[in-house]
């Protein structure tokens, strides 16, 4: 039997989320290494915008996984707030230490 019966890739919300996540993964791979790696052999420290963008993309991706895959969007309010508080803390800690430390 076809394991994907009754699943429409074009209409399924989870499939949309997955496509978005894969697209952002490719984007951040391209930003942080990938095509740039050969060009970027100078290893300059001047990657501020790129690095910040990579972290922000990762936080957004995690929010999508929590919201749709872990089904937190349908969870009680305390859990939604806890998860968002965690995401915000990670963003502040990592970005804050990157920018100010």
């Amino acid at each position, binding site marked *: *039997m076809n*394991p994907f*019966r*009754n*699943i429409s890739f074009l209409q399924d919300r*989870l*499939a949309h*989320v*997955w496509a978005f*996540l*894969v697209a952002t*993964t*490719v984007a*951040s*791979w391209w*930003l*942080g*290494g*990938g095509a740039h*790696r050969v060009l*970027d052999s100078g*290893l300059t*420290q001047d*990657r501020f915008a790129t*690095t910040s963008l*990579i*972290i922000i*993309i*990762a*936080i957004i*991706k*995690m929010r999508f*996984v*929590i919201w*749709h*895959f*872990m*089904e937190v969007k*349908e*969870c*009680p*309010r305390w*859990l939604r707030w*806890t998860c968002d508080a*965690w995401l915000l*803390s*990670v963003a502040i*800690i*990592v970005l804050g*230490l*990157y920018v100010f*430390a």
Partner: protein
Amino acid sequence: MSHSSITYDTDTGFTEPNPTASGSAPVRPNTRLPGQAAMWFFVLGDLWIFTCYFACYAFDRAREPMAFLQGQHTLNQDMGAFNTILLLSSSLLVAWCLKAARKQEYTQARQLLMMGGASGVCFLLIKAVEWYIKIDAGLPEISGQFFIYYFMFTGLHFLHVSLGLAILTLAYLELKKATSGNLAFVESGAVYWHMVDLLWIIIFALLYLM
């Protein structure tokens, strides 16, 4: 709505009243906790433990950014990105599995779960190859603080994936005998598996790309 009558009490470990299981009209049908409350306790705590690791990493990286960048450039970003997509797909398959199980399509659910688990195994194999390449390159190549973080983060994540595969196997067996519609264990397993995915997203960004 087929899943709103599931009883969670037996497995939670918490004595939380479950309004949907009492037989009366659901108070707020839109908010429910998938899986066992104890699993959420674990997942949230685990995320905070990893946050401590990430904070230490960001702090140390800020102290010697050049050394960390040099270490990062020796990693294989392509393998890392491929592994990310593999885990994302695995998460999607497990989420679909849960959807199918709630519609009582247990055969389809098992097929999807099997494919999700297989993606997880592929992830571990690719990670092992990556480690082999790094270790084979010799000690000077992998010394320094960055590589301690690299091996600790990927190693702990590897451990989490292995534990997740064990949980998915148990969930598969649960789906095989699932006739009562009690999906609490399968839901918990899915929550755990998505957490593994979640952690890899941030580890990939921190170690490989940042």
